[in-house]
């Protein structure tokens, strides 16, 4: 899903420009990398989610203005995201801003690579065995404790920790593939 040829992507963009309901395909294709990019630059989940939503709303609203100039569609989305983060950071109260948010408009290739790596971890979660996946989502997205998860899944805490460990190993594997490949 994350890999499409340039020609396919151009077709998808043109389709969405003519029929906005086709935007869903572009969203599916780019959600993880944009979320990953933002999550590396702001402090918490709520902010990341708000900014991610903002980026895709902006992209949808301005889609007709997008012109293919050789750079991939993701570069356009990254630019919207970078601007959104910069705007957001400017609006933060000084106090809250005392811990600087790592924002660089002049993103380097390595920034994008890091985002891509995080995005590939997100995608890899989808391929985990169901029980491992459930543990990862509850632990990292819902921020539940091992005890809470154990109760919810009707498993022992030891079993949950075991699932967490296996899941991490699996994710590490996919991530190394990406990182090295």
């Amino acid at each position, binding site marked *: 899903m994350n890999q499409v040829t340039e020609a396919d992507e151009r077709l998808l963009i043109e389709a969405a420009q003519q029929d906005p309901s086709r935007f869903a395909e572009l969203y599916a294709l780019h959600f993880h990398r944009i979320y990953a990019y933002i999550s590396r630059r702001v402090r918490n*989940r709520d902010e*990341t989610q708000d900014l991610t939503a903002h980026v895709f709303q902006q992209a949808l609203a301005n889609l007709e203005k997008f012109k293919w100039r050789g750079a991939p569609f993701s570069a356009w989305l990254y630019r919207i995201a970078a601007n959104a983060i910069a705007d957001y950071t400017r609006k933060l109260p000084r106090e809250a801003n005392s811990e600087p948010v790592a924002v660089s408009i002049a993103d380097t290739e390595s920034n994008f690579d890091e985002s891509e790596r995080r995005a590939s971890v997100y995608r890899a979660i989808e391929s985990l065995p169901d029980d491992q996946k459930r543990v990862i989502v509850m632990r*990292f*997205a819902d921020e539940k404790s091992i005890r809470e998860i154990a109760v919810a899944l009707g498993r022992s805490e030891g079993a949950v920790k075991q699932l967490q460990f296996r899941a991490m*190993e699996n994710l590490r594997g996919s991530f190394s593939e990406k990182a090295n490949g």
Partner: protein
Amino acid sequence: MAERSLNDQLDDLVTTMLAGRRPDLSNEDPLVVQLSEVVEELRNLPSADFYERLKEELTRSIEMSSPVQKLEPVVRRFSTYICVSNASAAIDFYVDAFGAKELMRLAEPSGKIGHAELQIGESILKISDEYPEYGALSPQSLGGSPVKLHLQVDNADDFARRAVAAGAIISRPIEDQFYGDRAGQLRDPFGYTWIVASHIRDVSIAEMQEQFDSFSKPKQAPARREGYHSVTPYITVQKASELVEFVKQAFGATETFRTTGSAGGLHSEVRIGESMVMIGGGPGMTERPTAIHLYVPDVDDAFQRAVDAGATALFEPADQPYGERSGALQDPMGNRWYIATTTVPLNQIDKDLRTVTIYFHPPKAQDLIDFLTNAFGAEEIMRSDSGDGAIYHAKVRIGDSVVEMGDARYEGQALPTAIYLYVDDVDAAYQQALKAGGTSVLPPTDQPYGDRTGWVQDPFDNVWYIATTIA
């Protein structure tokens, strides 16, 4: 510490990192250290439903911004709503004349119609009686309608014939038009004008514009003497000079020209208001007294002066139901003067209506209308009739003038007259008049006074001096 299982080590690490603290990795198993990189990537993992929620949100945005949802005006159907005086009669007329189908009516017990709907072709015409309290006023109350209604029909000629039989009047003859339709205009008895058109050939917009441009080019000066309209009465009486005196005294006429006519009598030209009247004749010459509908500023005053100048009253000035105050006189030379004052400027009644209008009383006005139409391209602009062929009153446009007529109702009412008629091409008009049933009196001839004239007597004994100024 080392006894702790890898599972526990990892979970402690996770707990520390989720709390936003930096873990101490120095004593951890190398595998756990490696996995710490994965933990770092998993911080702030989106909520389980976030991906779907945002997807739904975007879908809603798309739906909200789709064209139908925008606050743009959306019109489903356009129809016309007319107000008439006597809607019930109007419905009958539209059914008869246009083949309209009555779909519904809301009527008061008196029959007054609050709302009715007719289907005409594929369209709906909505109609009501007058309700002044709601601003619903008919053309009669408003003095006309600025809106014309357009009927696209299969055959404009047949359609117009049927409408005329039902009581419509042809206000512009059905003719081939530059824009590719055969079209004309009908006036219904309720004051609305209907354009009736059938398509006969395709014309591009560019071609239409070209034709249209040619209309707005400055036209050649009309081939007539200055100050003259198309129609001028030529009154011939033996006492011509007395008549000139009479119109001066009674109606404030100004004599602009006097000479000896071609037959040896007097030839005089007088102006009354913005119209010219030619007066001629002399002892022993054939008399052609004329009936004139004359608009004057003050009918009572003019009436008195005419009586003082020797005229006989036919009827005293009185307010007429058609909106004029008028009286009638006969002058000592035998001409009848229907004099009138209106509160409305003449050009609002009809753009070509003038101070002096000839009034014909032929045995059958319809025959004269037919002759004028065929001979001079005249067009009927109004009529009041009995419905079975008798015409009480009609107005016909010839060139830039209007003449009036009504069937003669008694012996001697007909006053066959002479008319000086300016046309663009005297030879063509002369030929056309003969074809229409006229008799030649004098073929087109260049006259010493600068006009080329051809004389034609119509079947009703009026003589038409058809003229074009050539020098």
